[in-house]
Structure formats: structure tokens, C-alpha cells
């Protein structure tokens, strides 16, 4: 899939019902546009505030420490794409930090050797 000629703010993945929200990069940054993956780790950067929508409050509570978008989806009992939308708001307001986003138009991950070594070491200890 090529990203040429697609929208700046959002993008569509065939089959999924909502746009793939671009959370960093894209138009202004030099880097590739980044989206939230199932395994992107979310960490709260703020306490819940009065007047926030309840889903946002729940996310901030759940993400006191790092938690993947997939885990958020499971604990909130919401579809992945619904959580992506909720998180896009929180990221835009700098209320959460997203670690390990992925390039919008990626195929497989291209891991560095250090990560693979850490995976082998960690699994051997299991």
C-alpha cells in the first residue's frame, strides 16, 4: 500500500470502519506519519479533569503506567478503532504520551538486532 496522494490528517485502511488517525509526523514533520498500533503503549501525562468525557477519564486512570492500545480496548470493552479515536483527542491535548507508534504505511516491522537479542534473552528466561 502506498501513501502517495492520500489525505494529510487521516487515512483509511481497507476494511476498518474509521480513519486511521495520524498522531505524529505527516505534513509538517520530516518523519513519516505515525499511527497508533495495537501494541502502541499509552501513558497518562495528566490526572483526569472535571468535565472530561467518562471514556477519557477511564483511559487516564488505566494508563497511570504504560498500557497497550489493545489492553485499553479489552479493559474498556470498546472496539480498537473507537479507542484510537478517543486517544487521538487525548494525544492532541497532550494528556497522554504514545510510545512505539508505527508508520502509517508499513508492512512488517524491521527490528534492529539489539531488540532481537533482547527478545531471545527474555524468552530463554521464560
Amino acid at each position, binding site marked *: 500500500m502506498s501513501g502517495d496522494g492520500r489525505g494529510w490528517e487521516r487515512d483509511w*485502511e481497507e476494511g*476498518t470502519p474509521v480513519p486511521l488517525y495520524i498522531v505524529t509526523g505527516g505534513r509538517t514533520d520530516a518523519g513519516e506519519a505515525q499511527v497508533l498500533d*495495537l501494541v502502541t503503549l499509552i501513558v497518562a501525562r495528566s490526572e483526569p479533569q472535571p468535565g472530561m468525557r467518562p471514556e477519557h477519564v477511564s483511559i487516564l486512570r488505566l494508563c497511570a503506567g504504560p498500557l497497550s492500545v489493545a489492553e485499553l480496548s479489552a479493559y474498556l470493552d470498546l472496539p*480498537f478503532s473507537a479507542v484510537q479515536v478517543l486517544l487521538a483527542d487525548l494525544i492532541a491535548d497532550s494528556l497522554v504520551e504514545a510510545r512505539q507508534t508505527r508508520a502509517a504505511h508499513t508492512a*512488517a516491522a524491521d527490528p534492529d538486532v539489539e531488540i532481537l537479542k533482547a*527478545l531471545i534473552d527474555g524468552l530463554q528466561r521464560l
Partner: protein
Amino acid sequence: MDCNDSEPPLGPRHEDLLPASTERSVKVVVVGGFGVGKTTMVGSVSEIRPLTTEETMTQAGVGVDDLSGVERKTETTVAMDFGRITLNDRLVLYLFGTPGQQRFWFLWNGVIAGALGAVVLVDTRRLEESFPAMDRLEQGGVPFVVAVNNFPGAPVHPVRDLRSALDLPEHVPVVGCDARRLDSSRDVLLTLMHHLYDSATATREFL
């Protein structure tokens, strides 16, 4: 493992919290035909009780009437089980088990995109059921290993025969496993990681 409750837990238990320093995460998918042991494998290696994430898929209906311009859409919810392995205070691995209804998870592109690699689970009684999953991985450029689940009464084929029956290139590892066992499932994941490591360190001219 008690899986008969439909309500999701309210949040991670204290012992399920990741270290605050965790900053890297990788995704591995377990694919294969119906009832081949995907959920079992995810559960046997996961440090947390497996969770479920879902997505609503839409598919443009067939028989679209060009003149009216009205498209019929069908909606399906796809649920995936997943588990987690914390590797160190920076790195965590997530393992996703796709559902047996293959044509639906194929539509969820975010599953394959960015995956580090995949485990294709194979039941020797129904080899052909793993073909669609392998095709999808090859299209997505996701490296994989083949794990043959040893079901009682299933025919035992030499790896060489399996390789040709599955039309697998020489570099794709094929291993036997028992998805119910932690050590066996862990070894399958290790085979995948060694395979990825070898590919990453091989010089271009040998590829």
C-alpha cells in the same frame, strides 16, 4: 484459566502492570485454520490472563448497483485474543491469536501491519487450512515460522514431506509443538526470533 465470564476486567491487576520504563513493544501474530490451537498457544505463554480486543469490519456488498450508486455494506465484529510477555524493563512482546474465520481477520490490516513476525499453526489432518494465512503473511511481507501441532491421532509427516506439501521455501523453519505447554510454545517463539535474527544479520548478497 477461567474463560466463562463475558465481562472484561475493570483494569490490570497490580501484578499485571508493566514497568514504568517500558518503551518498546513488538507484535507477533499466531495464525492458522479453525481450532488449530491459536488461543491455546497465546494462553500458555502469556503472563497475563489473555484478553480480547475487537474491531468492526465493513465490507462493500457484492452486486453493487452502479446506476443507483447505493452500496450495500456488511458489518462483522472480529475478536482476537492476545497475551503479553514482559522481556525486560524496556521491552514487551504481545502475541495475538487471530480467529478461525479467516476472511474476516484478513480485513483487519492493523493486525499484520508492523508485525515483527508470525507463527503459522498447522494441524496435519487439515494442512490446506493454513494456506490462506500463509498467503496473507507473504503478501504483507511478514516473516513466519510453521509450528505443527501434535494432535493425538494426527498423521506424523517427516518435515521434508510437510515442507513440500506446504510449498515452503527452505529458509522457513518448521517445528513441532504442543500449544498447551509453556515450554513448547516458548520454543516456537524462540525459533521465530532466531529466524528473524539470522535474516537481520545475513549479508544482502546471500538473501
